[in-house]
Every structure is written in structure tokens, then in C-alpha cells.
């Protein structure tokens, strides 16, 4: 079975050749990925990043942007490695969302 990322030779439509500016959060994701791989032993290899992206499933794979896929894979890898817990993550997400809503309305 061909998996959703393995698209070599399939019709892909026109290629967007515009230069993209990286958002600050995207740069942070790139650096975080690099730091996780540079530990000895690595917390997460590039291979593990790719595995996590490939395992997102076709729906999420096609819906998410490039660095959103990275974020999803890094998150799942860190949960799997026990670096962060789901509970810890859920509380941080709640905190950030609350802060964001407050900033938006003030």
C-alpha cells in the first residue's frame, strides 16, 4: 500500500515557487528539532521525526502545514519518550489559549 507521504510520480498539481517567510514559531520548531537530535543519545532523530509525520494518517497529513506536521510529530515523540506528559501538555495548551484570548480582547 502506498502511504500518504510517498507521492513520487503522482500528479501533484502546480508547484508554488514563491519564497516563503518563516514565522517566528516555525523557526522555533526548526531549532527545537535540531536540539532534540543533537543530544547524546538523541531524544529524537530526523528519522523519528519523519516516522511521526508519516504516522499522522492521510487526513492530518494533507490538512496540516509543513511545520504543523513537524510540531505534531515532535509532540508525539516527546510524549512517547516520556519527556513531556499529556497532562502537562494539556495544561500548558489551556494556559496559552487563555492568555491569547485575554490579549485579544484587551
Amino acid at each position, binding site marked *: *500500500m*502506498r*502511504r500518504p507521504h*510517498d507521492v*513520487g*510520480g503522482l500528479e501533484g498539481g502546480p508547484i508554488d515557487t514563491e519564497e516563503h517567510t518563516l514565522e517566528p514559531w516555525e523557526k522555533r520548531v526548526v531549532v527545537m528539532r535540531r536540539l532534540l537530535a543533537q543530544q547524546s*543519545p538523541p531524544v529524537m*532523530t530526523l*528519522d*523519528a521525526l*519523519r*516516522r511521526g509525520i*508519516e504516522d499522522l494518517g492521510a487526513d492530518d497529513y494533507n490538512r496540516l502545514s509543513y511545520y504543523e506536521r513537524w510540531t505534531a510529530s515532535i509532540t508525539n515523540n516527546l510524549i*512517547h*519518550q516520556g519527556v513531556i506528559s499529556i497532562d502537562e501538555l494539556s495544561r500548558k495548551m489551556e494556559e496559552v489559549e487563555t492568555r491569547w484570548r485575554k490579549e485579544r480582547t484587551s
Partner: protein
Amino acid sequence: MIPLRFAVGQRVRVRAVFPPGHIRTPYYTRGCVGIIESLAGIDPNPEHLAYGHLGHPPVPLYRVRFHQPDLWPNYGGNLQDTVVVDIFEHWLEATAHA
């Protein structure tokens, strides 16, 4: 030094298997015949690295040259066109003919 199963110039077929998991062998090459172009390196196995292991033992990685018409049934380009793909040794088997 790990013994190499294939020599430069040897004809090889990519195994036509479709296991799950993190795989570096492109789907479009499976079952196709190419020629060993060179040894790219002997690298930790990404199929192990991807799951938090160290990738040992390392695996020879070959550059394999394919004729485009051998990869695509209705290839519309120049029939002499080729493409080189990096493929790990355990994905290849010796074959006498195309």
C-alpha cells in the same frame, strides 16, 4: 568493514514488498530493476532509528540507476532518461535480467 552483497554495475531488483512503518525505499521503485551505480555509504538503519533505536548494525546504501521507462509504464519522455535512487541493501536482490 561490512561485506557488500552487490558490486558496481550489478543488476538488482528492488523487493516488491509493502510493510508498514518508516521506509526509505520509494513506492515507485518497488519491484523494478536497476543497476548499482556506486556505494553511497554504510549508514545506521533508518528503519530502526525512526523508532528510538540506534540503527545497528549499519546497512550499505547504494545508488541505483533506473531507466525511466522501467519505472513508469507509459513514460512519455526520452527513452534514455534515467534516475538514481538511494536504496538500502536489504531492499535489493540480485537479478539476471529485467
